[in-house]
């Protein structure tokens, strides 16, 4: 049995009946569109975040880069690492050589395992070694150009030593421009993956060629490690920019 109080309460509730706003259905549709937009945007953002995070890790895994062993987190996926790794992708592929080199190009090139720095014995912008000179940090930024050949069936990861990253970066392209150049335009590492062994030879033989460049502070030496597999020991090379210029 309902008490008088309950009956009064019930009557009050029923008397409080009101019609909903006339635009209720319109407002629901508006909310629904907003929800769909929000969910779509969130999905795109998540996909982009996964792509940005996965790319450097995949590169590092393929190249046996030390970054592969590092945990993925805010400390290891900073803007510097992201910018250094992600744009290296265009150089990372099979590019059979196309007729730019002389027939005896290997004689005048520096060999580092399966990697050839073309014409280096003429230009001398890079040499084997692990002890950069003491003359770093002086002068302005200069750009050097280099053609790198990689034997078929091989890969190589070129990583700038942390001590040289403040004045040396790779350029992903053959840049003959005249500056000005900024370090932020370059990369701290490059990964070069040559063609499979069965690929028909190009004009320069069974090598894949890459037209690359580097930014370096004039008068300085930069230590770079060349690693050809995850298990192989890295081979140190030193890039140099003499006061007379970085290229011929």
């Amino acid at each position, binding site marked *: 049995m309902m008490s*008088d*109080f*309950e009956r*009064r*309460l*019930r*009557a*009050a*509730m*029923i*008397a*409080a*009946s*009101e*019609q*909903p*706003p006339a635009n*209720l*259905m319109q*407002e*629901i549709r508006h*909310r*629904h569109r907003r*929800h769909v937009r929000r969910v779509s945007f969130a999905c795109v953002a998540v996909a982009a975040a996964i792509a940005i995070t996965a790319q450097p890790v995949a590169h590092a895994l393929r190249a046996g880069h030390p970054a592969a062993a590092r945990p993925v987190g805010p400390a290891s996926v900073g803007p510097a690492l992201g910018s250094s790794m992600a744009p290296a992708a265009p150089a990372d592929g099979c590019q059979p050589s196309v007729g730019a080199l002389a027939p005896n190009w290997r004689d005048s090139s520096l060999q580092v395992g399966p990697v050839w720095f073309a014409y280096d014995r003429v230009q001398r912008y890079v040499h084997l070694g692990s002890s950069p000179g003491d003359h770093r940090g002086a002068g302005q930024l200069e750009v050097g150009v280099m053609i790198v050949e990689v034997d078929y069936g091989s890969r190589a990861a070129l990583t700038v030593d942390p001590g040289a990253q403040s004045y040396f970066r790779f350029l992903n392209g053959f840049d003959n421009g005249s500056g000005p150049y900024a370090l932020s335009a370059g990369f701290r590492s490059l990964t070069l993956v040559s063609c499979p062994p069965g690929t028909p030879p190009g004009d320069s033989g069974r090598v894949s060629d890459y037209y690359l460049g580097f930014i370096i502070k004039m008068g300085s030496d930069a230590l770079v490690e060349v690693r050809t597999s995850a298990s192989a020991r890295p081979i140190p090379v030193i890039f140099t920019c003499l006061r007379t210029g970085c290229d011929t």
Partner: protein
Amino acid sequence: MGVGDQRDFTGAEGASASFEEFVGASSARLYTMALLLTGRQRADAEDLLQGVLERAYRHWRRICRNGDPEPYVRQMLVHASVDRWRQRRRQREQPLAAAAANPAAGDQASEIADRDMLLRALGALPAGQRAVLVLRYFCDLSEAQTAATLGCSVGSVKKQAARALASMRASVGPAAEPEPSTRATRGDGAVFDE
């Protein structure tokens, strides 16, 4: 009220059309319920109802699969109002207006004032207790149905309802609920319990 009406929304009609039909048929009841659940805050009630109906629209086919969607939407409304109240419970409660505490009895104006005072007292209750009273007295649900809607036991519903009614009686004051059978008036006008 037509709370128990069975309508078929699972036929060949598109989900959108059946949803619009449902909104057209039920929105007045649901809006009033939202008003009561939010303590007659119109903006809150509209926001609550729109949010709940939008979520219902997203899952409309699934909601309609079990027949009449109104009980489910009602449940969504109650849960959403309780969630909303939990988020806002740090806000200060609004005390009942002193002028409304002792309405005069008898005429239509006092009846309106009495209802207003009851609804204010209802709005001052915690959301869970308010939901129990709205489901019991506005939606005419039994204690078992109320318990099913709220996802709690019948005993809990009884306890919540008793506490809510006691709290409302205390807010409204004894003068608002005269019970002649148990009270007597002395010649000097004093009211005492027998």
